């Protein structure tokens, strides 16, 4: 993202993805990314992205309660084990960046995803604010908040979206048999 317009467009795509995933979530774009120590127990999930001339990462930070509240197994109890919370946090980051990947591909920005990394702890020192430029979003679902930050840029400084690179995608939730 080299221009304010690209940051705005990426933020809009992030909001759209979050609202697709959590229709009741209140989203605020362009929030300040906090620097320094997080006082409460937090879970941080991150996922790298890349292409020949593109690099970046998605980072999500929320309390374990956010991930318990959004755990997708209908009819099952919320996860009792921390491992289940961390697994879901990683998968949520994966599905969020996957959806952004498909949306960006339709705009001429094509990349591959890495494998999620998840950490949790108390009083963690989190400093992702220097990964600039970035788009940020704070989502609120009931009493729970999540901060999502996406850093993405061309290594050659070119425009993020290149219409000549448009590619066709299968949409979210769609399936095809060959």
């Amino acid at each position, binding site marked *: 993202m080299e221009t304010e317009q690209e940051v705005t467009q990426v933020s809009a795509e992030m909001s759209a993805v979050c609202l697709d*995933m959590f229709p009741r979530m209140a989203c605020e774009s362009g929030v300040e990314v906090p620097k320094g120590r997080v006082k409460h127990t937090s879970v941080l999930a991150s996922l790298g992205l890349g292409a020949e001339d593109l690099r970046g990462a998605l980072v999500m930070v929320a309390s374990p309660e956010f991930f318990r509240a959004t*755990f*997708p*197994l209908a009819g*099952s109890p919320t996860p009792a084990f921390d*491992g*289940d919370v961390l*697994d*879901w946090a*990683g*998968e949520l980051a*994966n*599905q969020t*960046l*996957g*959806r952004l*990947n*498909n949306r960006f*591909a339709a705009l001429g920005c*094509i990349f591959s*995803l*890495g*494998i999620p990394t998840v950490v949790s702890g108390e009083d963690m020192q989190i400093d992702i604010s220097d990964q600039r430029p970035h788009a940020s979003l704070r989502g609120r679902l009931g009493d729970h908040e999540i901060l999502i930050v996406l850093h993405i840029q061309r290594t050659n400084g070119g425009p993020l979206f290149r219409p000549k690179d448009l*590619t*066709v*995608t*299968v*949409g*979210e*939730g*769609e*399936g*095809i*048999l*060959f």
Partner: protein
Amino acid sequence: MPHKILLVDDSKTVRQQVAVALTQAGFSTVEAGDGQEALDQMAKNPDVKMIVCDVNMPRMSGLEFLAAMKQAGKMGNPPVVMLTTEGKNDVIDKAKALGVRGWVVKPFKADQLIAAAKKLTGA
């Protein structure tokens, strides 16, 4: 005997989601957390009737798993359906060339996956 389906995904949450849906539809499931584990499960479970497989996984990806299956002459039987966040046609084309029979983009709809399983296993 219910038809057995191998679920390959590095997320335990996703494996559980898919297992619940398929079990309720009358299938049985076995699980693997990456492509290498999937190869091991295939060796242990020769009665697997279908595979549901993610693309991006550590150690051995879904496409690497497909290539290993193809090299072993096992692609096509049992049929493989990919379940992934990946929806770009170039990746789908690579998987098709390796013999994949279906593609579902997460988040999946249980009815859709069950319909595919019934069709591909003849259940």
